[in-house]
């Protein structure tokens, strides 16, 4: 088991469908798991019934008042509040390091084999060991957060993701520290808003391509943020990041079978380069 580390599963309205919990156990996770819910969740009693003391509830309005939601709406069916609440929860529970997980992960997978070649074969990954390796790297570098990649990063094969500057994104599996606190901004698309906005000012984020998560298809899983997405489509969602970085993010159509609007990041115009120390004059 990892020291001074815990896993948070951020969930809302899906007490009977916290897929990530079983996925963690299936992959041999032995550390502490906490189910993070908000005080506006009508299904809270069911969460307590099922997970007991593992459930941690936070005050959604209190978090809302402490962050920039990027708009003047009052629809709080979004994950940004839980994302930000985790820093305080970790501190209260006495953990320095934690990982934020969504509730819909069906698998953890290797994306590189031992010859560093792209693979999509499923193996039983020991997630304790993988979390330990990721945490060890995180502790040795000044990044705000690092994350595993996600299945969508490899649509069409490796797609250059292993070497691309796009690795400076960070989504879904945020490994964080209470000693490197940061604030997620923008009611929706909060992950993209954050790594773009803070990234442009020198905040460091990174996706580790060697390992990835698999998720339930977007907007196919009832509860969570599905309803807010279905209400406004991806049109509104995508524009949040444009508001935060109009100089390097625009909106484009994505997909072929079911085309939808999506943000498009000009990475070389978004984040400063990480360069070797030798270049610095003394």
């Amino acid at each position, binding site marked *: 088991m990892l020291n001074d580390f815990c896993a948070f599963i951020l969930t809302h309205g899906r007490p009977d469908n916290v897929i990530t919990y079983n996925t963690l156990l299936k992959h041999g996770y032995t550390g502490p798991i906490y189910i993070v819910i908000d005080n506006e969740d009508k299904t809270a009693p069911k969460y307590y019934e099922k997970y007991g003391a593992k459930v941690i509830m936070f005050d959604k309005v209190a978090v809302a008042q402490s962050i920039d939601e990027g708009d003047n709406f009052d629809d709080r069916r979004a994950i940004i509040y839980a994302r930000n609440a985790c820093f305080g929860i970790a501190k209260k529970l006495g953990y320095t390091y934690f990982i934020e997980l969504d509730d819909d992960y069906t698998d953890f997978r*290797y994306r*590189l*084999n*031992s*010859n*560093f*070649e*792209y693979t999509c074969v499923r*193996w*039983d*990954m*020991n997630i304790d*060991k*993988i979390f330990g*390796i*990721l945490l*060890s*790297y995180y502790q*040795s*570098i*000044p990044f705000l957060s690092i994350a595993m990649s996600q299945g969508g990063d490899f649509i069409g094969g*490796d797609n*250059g993701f*292993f*070497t*691309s*500057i*796009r*690795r*400076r994104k960070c989504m879904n599996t945020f490994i964080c520290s209470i000693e490197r606190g940061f604030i997620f901004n923008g009611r929706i698309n909060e992950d993209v808003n954050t790594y773009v906005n803070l990234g442009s*000012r*020198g905040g*460091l984020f*990174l996706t*580790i391509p*060697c*390992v990835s998560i698999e998720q339930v298809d977007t907007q196919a899983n009832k509860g969570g943020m599905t309803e807010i997405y279905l209400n406004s489509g991806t049109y509104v969602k995508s524009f949040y990041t444009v508001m935060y*970085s*109009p*100089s*390097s993010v625009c909106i*484009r159509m994505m997909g072929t079978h079911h085309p939808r609007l999506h943000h*498009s*990041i*000009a*990475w*070389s*115009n*978004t*984040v*400063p*380069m*990480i*360069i*070797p*120390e030798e*270049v*610095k*004059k*003394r």
Partner: protein
Amino acid sequence: MGKQNDLFGSDIEKADLIDKKYTAKIKAPIYIPKQRNPSIYELVNTLKSDSLIEEIKKSNVTNLEKDFLIEAARRHTVFNYALIADYYAHANKEMQELMEKSALVIIDFDKAIEYGYVKLSEDIADQYIEDTKDAE
């Protein structure tokens, strides 16, 4: 990163930042500045912000409102961080320090990011062998 993701339309960073084909080699997220010292005029594209500022200056809003709008218009200035890193490599010490303070480049002190990334990749590869040894 395809052509559509490059607001500058430059080929320079494309060639340097990505491999067109996966090379089966661990590559840390480090950028190596180029020999060429770009002109400082190449580092930013102010086309959009200049156009907005011109319109603001001609407008009838109050001077305070103009000041605000001009600050906001600068959010549309496009920075080319690859060329900025190239420029940094040729800049004098004082300029370098000011660029660092403004987070225009990030220095990988003691190669912590680069070497750590290689170790991370190797450790995951070792774990892959461990996790698949019974299956292979």
